[in-house]
């Protein structure tokens, strides 16, 4: 019952996606149906040629027919090239629409980010890649099945007009295999799933053990690892063999329908051909059309398989949304694939003293903040940040320091609590407590692989770039890089040291000239002296007007604080 419902949902989502590019889809559809339908006139021509092979009949000469047949066959391929190039553009569009909708939701919609990705970022990428592709495959297979069905329908019609009995006979094996494939389907799917899981277990185990190679070696666990690996490999081989042979069986049976049909036709027409009621041309036509019919089971199989695969994919994509509403990620969106999006309009950064109205921070009040999760969290936390104050948070491992910062900013879901910005209640902290109001420097910041300037700016204008580099104590590092701010950082460029990463992330926060700076522990990557310089510079630059909330263990930093919050097991001990 639910399976039927969700299948219709994957069809509905695919239909929505189709409607995003209806003209392009129609062009593709025509291209594919034409390609598929060419064997129909070819069969008729072959029949005419064979029936008139000895002497030309009343109509066109055999040589004319041959030229037309050759032109059709060659033209079919040229038409295919046009269709293929056009199709590749639509194929990209089918991927791009859900991706743009999903990324927009993940990166800028209101609500906490924590828990938005069901598993790791790598898993999310596989959803953006493979699950989007699964959905696109449904639209693609509709093209092929349309072509195959149109061609098969025409073929059956023409064959039936020649000999109904033989037509039924050649269609029988096709129907039988369709039924068999349908019956085997659930088993094949279960086998495929088992094989995939067994493979994931093996690759996961390899990744894990070599990721923990020092532990493996120090424990002398090499033999134990090998034993486990061999066991996993053996059960994977069992699952994979079953899957591969099962798939091959269905493929072979589908392929066999063609020759079985021809064999049955030969048996049936023997007397008629002997009498001359069934001509050689008819036989040529039947052998051509049977090939067309025999491709049907494969495409029917694929329509079913792709639709079911897409059900899972639609669910997996919907999991990336705050509300699992699949229609959302196929919502209309401008893909601008043909011309590209053009240059990004940089977001202007105001000077702090020019800011007016609700952007300018006077005070931020947090009341009764509570985050509850098994084995930790926060309970009833109150906090007031006045303009120009320096507040430090400290406490043992697992006491909820990072959670406090992220809950305040709305990055993790909060069970209770309110935030008031200048006395006005903040309903959507995740979109309100952002630059230029607040900038956040996480404990383990993530930089993006692009030029140093781009990874700092991330789309804001560069008015405050030099100042930000200096505040973050990064100017000397930049000076030492041969390409300066144009240096590409990340796995394919220059690898930054841990301290450089942290200072780059600090520059990323400073360049936005935030009213409130929220910092989660700089000590793991900056030494005491550098951290002190950083704070000193910030105070000079803002004439002591900087508002800071920082998590730290360092006494030197705690000494600067106007206010200290000591967390213990999720509650504040002042």
């Amino acid at each position: 019952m639910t399976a039927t419902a969700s299948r219709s949902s994957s069809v509905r989502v695919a239909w929505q996606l189709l409607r995003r590019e209806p003209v392009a889809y129609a062009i593709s559809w025509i291209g594919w149906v034409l390609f598929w339908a060419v064997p129909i006139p070819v069969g008729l021509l072959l029949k005419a040629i064979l029936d008139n092979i000895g002497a030309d009949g009343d109509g066109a000469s055999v040589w004319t027919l041959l030229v037309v047949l050759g032109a059709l066959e060659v033209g079919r391929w040229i038409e295919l090239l046009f269709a293929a190039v056009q199709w590749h553009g639509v194929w990209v569009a089918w991927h791009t629409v859900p991706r743009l909708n999903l990324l927009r939701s993940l990166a800028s919609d209101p609500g906490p980010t924590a828990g938005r990705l069901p598993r790791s970022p790598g898993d999310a990428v596989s959803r953006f890649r493979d699950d989007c592709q699964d959905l696109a495959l449904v639209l693609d297979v509709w093209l092929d099945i349309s072509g195959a069905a149109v061609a098969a329908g025409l073929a059956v019609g023409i064959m039936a007009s020649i000999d109904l009995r033989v037509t039924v006979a050649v269609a029988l094996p096709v129907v039988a295999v369709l039924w068999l494939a349908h019956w085997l389907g659930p088993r094949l799917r279960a086998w495929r799933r088992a094989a995939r899981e067994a493979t994931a277990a093996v690759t996961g185990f390899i990744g894990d053990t070599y990721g923990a190679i020092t532990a493996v070696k120090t424990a002398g666990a090499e033999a134990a690892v090998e034993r486990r690996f061999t066991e996993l490999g053996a059960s994977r081989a069992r699952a994979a063999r079953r899957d591969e042979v099962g798939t091959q069986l269905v493929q072979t049976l589908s392929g066999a329908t063609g020759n079985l049909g021809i064999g049955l036709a030969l048996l049936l027409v023997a007397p008629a051909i002997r009498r001359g009621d069934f001509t050689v041309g008819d036989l040529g036509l039947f052998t051509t059309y049977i090939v067309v019919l025999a491709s049907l089971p494969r495409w029917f199989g694929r329509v079913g398989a792709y639709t079911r695969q897409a059900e899972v994919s639609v669910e997996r994509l919907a999991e990336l949304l705050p509300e699992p509403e699949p229609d959302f990620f196929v919502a209309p969106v401008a893909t601008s694939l043909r011309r590209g999006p053009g240059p990004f309009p940089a977001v202007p950064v105001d000077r702090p003293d020019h800011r007016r109205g609700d952007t300018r921070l006077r005070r931020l009040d947090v009341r009764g903040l509570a985050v509850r999760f098994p084995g930790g969290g926060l309970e009833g936390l109150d906090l007031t940040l006045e303009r120009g104050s320096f507040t430090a948070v400290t406490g043992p491992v697992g006491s909820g320091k990072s959670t406090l910062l992220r809950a305040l900013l709305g990055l993790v879901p909060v069970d209770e609590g309110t935030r008031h910005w200048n006395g006005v209640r903040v309903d959507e902290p995740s979109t309100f407590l952002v630059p230029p109001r607040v900038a956040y420097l996480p404990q383990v910041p993530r930089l993006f692989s692009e030029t140093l300037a781009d990874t700092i700016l991330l789309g804001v204008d560069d008015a405050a770039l030099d100042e930000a580099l200096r505040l973050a104590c990064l100017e000397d590092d930049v000076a030492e890089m041969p390409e300066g701010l144009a240096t590409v950082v990340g796995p394919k460029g220059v690898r930054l040291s841990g301290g450089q990463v942290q200072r780059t992330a600090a520059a990323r926060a400073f360049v936005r000239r935030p009213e409130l700076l929220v910092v989660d522990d700089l000590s793991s990557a900056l030494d005491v002296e550098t951290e002190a310089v950083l704070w000193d510079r910030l105070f000079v630059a803002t004439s002591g007007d900087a508002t800071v909330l920082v998590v730290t263990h360092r006494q030197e930093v705690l000494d600067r604080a106007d206010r200290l919050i000591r967390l213990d097991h999720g509650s504040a001990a002042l």
Partner: protein
Amino acid sequence: MTEPAQPHLLAAYLRPERLRVAALVAVLVVAMLLPVAGPVLIGRFVDSAAAGQPVSSLLAIAGTFLAVAVGADALQLLVAWRSVRMAWRMGNRLRTDLARHALGLELAWHGEHSPGVLIERIDGDIDALTKFASTAVLQLLGNAVLLSGVFVVSLVIDWRAGLLIGAATLVAAALMVRLRTAAVPAHDDEREVLGRLYGDLEERLGGLEDLRANGAGRYALHRLHEHSARWWRAARRASLKGDGAYVAAGIAFSAGSALTLALGVYLFRGDQMSIGSVLVLFRFSQMIRQPLEHIAEQMRELQKAAAGARRASRLLATRPSIVDGPGTPIPEGPLTVDLDSVTFAYGDRRTVLAEIDLHLAAGTVLGVVGRTGSGKTTLGRLLLRFWDVTEGAVRVGGVDVRAATIAELRRRVGIVTQEVELLRASVRDNLTMLGAIPADDRRLAEVLAAVDLDGWLAGLPDGLDTVLEGTDTLSAGEGQLLAFARVFLADPGLVVLDEASSRLDPATEARITAAVDRLLAGRTVVVIAHRLATLDRADEIIVLDHGRVVEHGSRHDLAGDPDSRYGRALRLGRRPEAVG
């Protein structure tokens, strides 16, 4: 670098299968020749009908056709079944050998090869290789047999028609090879664009919090727009070139097919060919496209497999530089440590440790301090023989570490580093390292209690069977404690603590200090220090500077000596890195 010839690898792993391979090839040749008989039987059927043969002989031909068709499919299934079995047997043997070999290579090698790369080496490459060895080789061979069969039979029917079909095949093959090669840069370009698209996506998805907190969501979306537009252009260009090659070959086949039919008509009219043969040749001219396309497909697999085999051979040819000694037993109980004028350099790079002489009585706690790069970490690693000394000798319990087996050495010497390495496996497997360290549940609970993790254990849904996945079940600090527990489970006589408490905040560290002290009792300990407070338990201190011992004495004496570097640092409250 000498590159071992890759056919050797396949040959070595195929050798045990050679009889099965021979049988498979024999079956395959028959299975692929049977389809050639199909059109010939249809031709005979037509000609017999035209010649006025009785219906019974027509029925006999039709029956033969059916039998041949079913037989061919059955044999092909048999081949598929056997070859899949063979591929998995062979592939898993190769995978296990590679995994074992990689496990035996030293840490320096692993530092240069990420787990992701090893998944590719041990699984991805072998997948391509075994698919090739089992499926592709057979298909390649089978399709070649089919093509030759078609060619020979058409030559027999009529030499001109045979040559025409042969020529169409050659032209199509040449076009396919030429144009596909020309399309390679376009395909590479598309892959490159896609690689960047997904790479960028993974970074943005991994840094969602950073994006949100910096208000950079729209910018991230803009990047995706740019990458997608680039993909659109690259995909269409690659399609034009790649599908162009496919289409050009298709045109050659279609032209060949039409010409064959025309030739048949011409020969029929000159009474040189029967109508049945015209039909047979036309069918043949249409049958050759698929096998040729399959062959082209498999040639690509061949390239992938060859690259995989080369990489696998190279991995197997990498010799570990650390190999087992003759197996001198290391005594039980706390171990003495002796470094006899030890000098060490990584490869040909600068010397990291120079002429270190150090002798510790069993049960001593030694603190090692010095700046980053002074050689502290290396010193600890030498005790477990992660590297071999360049000169001199390291002895543990009086036994040169190169004389003992590596397994024995690592059982008796434990290390806790700041890198906590956990498996996505149960708590039990993580503690015993998949059973390598024998211990029952009671002992596991004891050890966890000793590092103050009993409360944590009690909170786990499945106790020791709880699977550790990510940081949800375990904070960084708890991970560090688990690593302590793992080492003490093995009951080593010498423990190296390499900045082991750096992830613990002072409060947590203080809480477990007593527990760790208890665990360290009765063992020799080398503490490579992060905080000077960590060294409170040390009996002796050495100060390293540029790979040399610049100070060595009892902690008590050094602390009281106003001229010692350690004492000075202690009074200034500096970090151990700043000592020296």
